[in-house]
């Protein structure tokens, strides 16, 4: 044997040995992770095991919403961060919850809705359900409520959960009446106690903590509460100190938990795990390693579906995904910076935007447009959208032009059909098309946009580019997310492209998420930004619009942060309507009428170019679990990070596959 051959054979043999050692099966290693079946172990008795050792058929596996946890052992709800990965859905309990199917609040820890004790709407009595127990067997009573409120008030300077500020500014006083009853007095007349001390859409500002645990801590702000005592039907069983996963186990006494009355949560275990970047997530999803994804891109979903028939989207018809998220995508403008201070210019931007083209290019047409600055959902449509359709159709700009395009959705469907989308995947009939793609949007009319711009002295030069009245080129900066939000990034580039085609010199600037927040919140930095905002889920629009007040306006280049009114909108009518609505019962028809009037003002001023509902792409893999919320089985929104997850874990069914 020649010398090099000998050496090389030794190297190759060594490498093979290394490979074999690395490929040792989990059983040989005495542990569950990795090995066969792409990270899952096969056991004769229990069937497939997850990579954390639980039987796969008893474990619901969910892609985490917040990816890797930065601070995995921090489980103290008085401090920031202990919300994602199941705390909000499976661990904590709330006085009132939101039914995501209807938008209505319902009592969870409370026995009923708050009882109003005075005509000023400032004093309330709340009765708790009896027979609810913490996971360590101690009964939940008003002692826990009063202790939590005491802690909020006494430790407010040290607690970093921002909702502590919300509560201490909202509540004036509180007292226990008996073991299951307490009263609170609010600083101002309040009609939203159930969504401040209870859940509004995503979370609650008030999270009761167990007195018997917390009162023993010398400093609650330093207490991490790792492996917390919970009110929900699950407890943390194990978590990754590096923050990639967290495993919850159903309590033996789940019936005595905060929402045990809803029925038995079906999975014995719920595993939240970050399966990595989308490239590896798709592969893991195809291998049935997890059941529910969060915000997977449409392209990846299609690729996964082609390889695994158990992967489904929210609907088998376009636009395939759920459109009931509370927030929408839209363009925020600094209305104090010329030329954006003129309504004609803002309208010109809206009319220069070919939204059909944007939606097809960026999202393959899988979107739902909304001309009003609000999401067009099944809850909000009958209250705010349908009554305003006639007004939108007749609405004219000062020059007499009617900008609304009621045929937007039908035209979009026609274009999608032309582009090869199968007819059976497209909605049929006017109503179905409207429900799928929205009630309409603004016309794409660059000619009218040019007329509007010309009317304020902005004209095209010889190169076909718009110039300002002083002759300089109008350069518009559009801030968009970088790779950290690929869907918005694509939408942002498509918007910029559309505006450029119309002759507007746009610089689409991608920024990291930290800079994105600063641009959004600091007055001087903003020109235009593609944003997700205007989050309204229930008919109570004040949670999003409460800050649109004249007092919150600042100069165009003011360097201080914005305190509300991110639209930088100066509208006295709206200011008055908001103030009036704050003193109203939200079920009052006048409250909703005010909401519609505010929407009309938004449109008249084009104060915010609302674009579309956020396409919430949550594909599910029904190999191990079935009966997830779908378009034709809509018992809750399909999100795993909202109240809806409680309904999901109660309603899903095992398929029996092991």
């Amino acid at each position: 044997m020649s010398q090099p051959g000998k050496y090389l054979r030794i190297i190759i043999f060594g490498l093979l040995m290394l490979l074999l050692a690395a490929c040792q099966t989990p059983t040989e290693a005495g542990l569950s992770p990795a090995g066969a079946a792409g990270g899952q172990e096969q056991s004769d008795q229990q069937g497939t095991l997850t990579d954390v050792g639980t039987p796969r058929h008893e474990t619901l596996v969910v892609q985490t919403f917040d990816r890797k946890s930065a601070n995995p052992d921090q489980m103290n709800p008085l401090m920031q961060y202990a919300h994602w990965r199941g705390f909000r859905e499976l661990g904590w309990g709330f006085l009132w919850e939101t039914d995501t199917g209807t938008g209505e609040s319902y009592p969870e820890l409370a026995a009923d809705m708050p009882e109003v004790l005075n005509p000023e709407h400032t004093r309330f009595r709340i009765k708790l359900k009896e027979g609810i127990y913490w996971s360590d067997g101690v009964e939940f009573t008003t002692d826990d409520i009063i202790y939590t409120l005491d802690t909020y008030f006494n430790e407010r300077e040290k607690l970093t959960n921002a909702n502590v500020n919300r509560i201490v500014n909202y509540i004036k006083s509180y007292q226990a009446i008996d073991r299951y009853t307490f009263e609170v007095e609010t600083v101002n007349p309040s009609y939203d106690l159930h969504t401040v001390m209870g859940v509004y859409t995503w979370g609650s500002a008030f999270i009761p903590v167990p007195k018997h645990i917390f009162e023993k801590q010398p400093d609650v702000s330093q207490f991490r509460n790792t492996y917390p005592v919970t009110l929900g039907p699950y407890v943390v069983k194990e978590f990754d100190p590096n923050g990639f996963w967290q495993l919850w186990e159903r309590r033996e006494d789940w019936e005595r938990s905060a929402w045990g009355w809803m029925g038995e949560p079906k999975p014995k275990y719920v595993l939240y795990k970050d399966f990595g970047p989308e490239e590896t997530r798709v592969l893991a999803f195809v291998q049935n390693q997890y059941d529910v994804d969060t915000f997977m891109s449409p392209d990846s979903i299609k690729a996964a579906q082609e390889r695994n028939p158990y992967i489904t989207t929210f609907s088998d018809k376009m636009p395939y995904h759920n459109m009931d998220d509370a927030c929408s995508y839209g363009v925020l403008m600094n209305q104090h910076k010329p030329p954006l201070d003129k309504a004609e210019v803002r309208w010109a931007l809206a009319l220069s935007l070919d939204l059909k083209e944007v939606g097809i290019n960026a999202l393959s047409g899988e979107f739902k447009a909304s001309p009003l600055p609000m999401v067009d959902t099944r809850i909000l449509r009958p209250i705010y959208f349908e009554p305003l359709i006639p007004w939108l159709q007749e609405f004219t700009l000062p020059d007499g032009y009617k900008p609304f395009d009621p045929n937007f959705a039908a035209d979009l469907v026609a274009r999608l059909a032309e582009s090869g989308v199968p007819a059976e995947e497209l909605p049929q009939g006017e109503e179905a098309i409207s429900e799928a793609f929205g009630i309409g949007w603004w016309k794409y009319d660059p000619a009218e946009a040019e007329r509007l711009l010309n009317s304020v002295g902005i004209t095209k030069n010889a190169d076909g580019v718009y110039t300002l009245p002083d002759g300089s080129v109008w350069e518009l900066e559009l801030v968009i997310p970088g790779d950290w939000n690929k869907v918005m990034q694509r939408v942002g580039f498509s918007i910029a492209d559309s505006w450029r085609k119309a002759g507007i010199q746009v610089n689409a600037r991608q920024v990291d998420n930290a800079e994105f927040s600063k641009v959004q919140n600091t007055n001087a930095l903003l020109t235009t930004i593609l944003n997700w905002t205007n989050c309204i889920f229930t008919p109570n629009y004040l949670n999003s619009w409460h800050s649109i007040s004249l007092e919150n306006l600042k100069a165009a280049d003011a360097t201080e942060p914005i305190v509300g009114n991110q639209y930088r909108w100066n509208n006295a009518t709206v200011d008055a309507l908001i103030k009036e609505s704050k003193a109203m019962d939200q079920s009052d028809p006048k409250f909703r009428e005010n909401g519609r009037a505010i929407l009309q003002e938004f449109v008249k001023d084009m104060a915010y170019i609302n674009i579309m509902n956020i396409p919430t792409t949550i594909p599910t893999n029904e190999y191990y679990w079935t009966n997830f919320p779908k378009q034709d089985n809509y018992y809750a929104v399909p999100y795993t990070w909202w109240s809806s997850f409680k309904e999901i874990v109660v309603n899903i069914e095992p398929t029996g596959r092991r």
Partner: protein
Amino acid sequence: MKLAQYIAARLGVYVVVLFMGITITFFLPRLMPSDPIENYIAQLQNQAGQTLSEAEVMQLRATLAELYGLEGSLFTQYINHLKRIFLTFDFGPSFASFPRPVSEFIWVALPWTLGLLTTTTFIAWSLGNFIGLLAGFFHNNRLATALEVVGVLIYPIPYYILALVFILVLAYIFPVFPLSTTIRPGPLTWSKIQMIATNSALPALTLITAGFGWNILSMKSLAYATKEEPYVTFARLKGVPPRKIMISYVFRNALLPQVTALALSIGMIFNGALLTEILFSYPGLGLLMRTAVGSGDYNMLYGTITMSIMAVATAALVIDLLYPLFDPRIRYK
């Protein structure tokens, strides 16, 4: 005496590099167009239903500025920063995970990054140099040429693509490795070591494959050139056995530039950490840095970058101090 001067000079450079690095890392994050307080408030505002009133937002800003230690002039903050690092090795609390100290996060993440990347860097270096030596010394042998071709083919492939190919082939088509890292907590037992090895195998294999190509090519050229040197020819004519010629005459002399390259590649360890950790969901400093940038967490950035600077500077110092062992010219200069 000359050797002592050499060591003293290297130590002096080491201290200056550390001081400059720590100073730059203090100011750089503050030039970033982000703000940890605004970032936190924006997160809250984006969580529907938790919209704070104007007064509450103002109050929260003031509270966070005080808690985060962002009050006072930049100079005051800088002096406090230096005092904390040099006196107590304290980087302060993480803003994104307040009040947990940054150093805690670093001590958790550092072993993963150092363990994986140091091991793979040395394996890739040793393997590449060994194959390169054989390919250069026995340049007419077909097997040696074949391995050289492998090096030439692999070297230009971007790491990201190479990693995805490995994932696709070895975790999806032939699922012998896990797609993402899952390591359960618990004491460091033999089973846990095996678990770590199993979960680290694919990232390690990718890093080694991506790393050794250059070493093959570089060492092959050096070995080929060195074996034509007159002192090698003289040794051959004198009847010195080929193995001794290869190891003692060719390898030792070709090694010096490669040792320098190793020092440089150790400096690249922390760059490599980011992509590896993202793609393989592998815990470590790279992901900590990425998260810190995304959330404007100044202190976490100070901590992770300072640790990187210290690690790289220390590695370079160690290599510098080892040089006299490899090169007698330094020893006897």
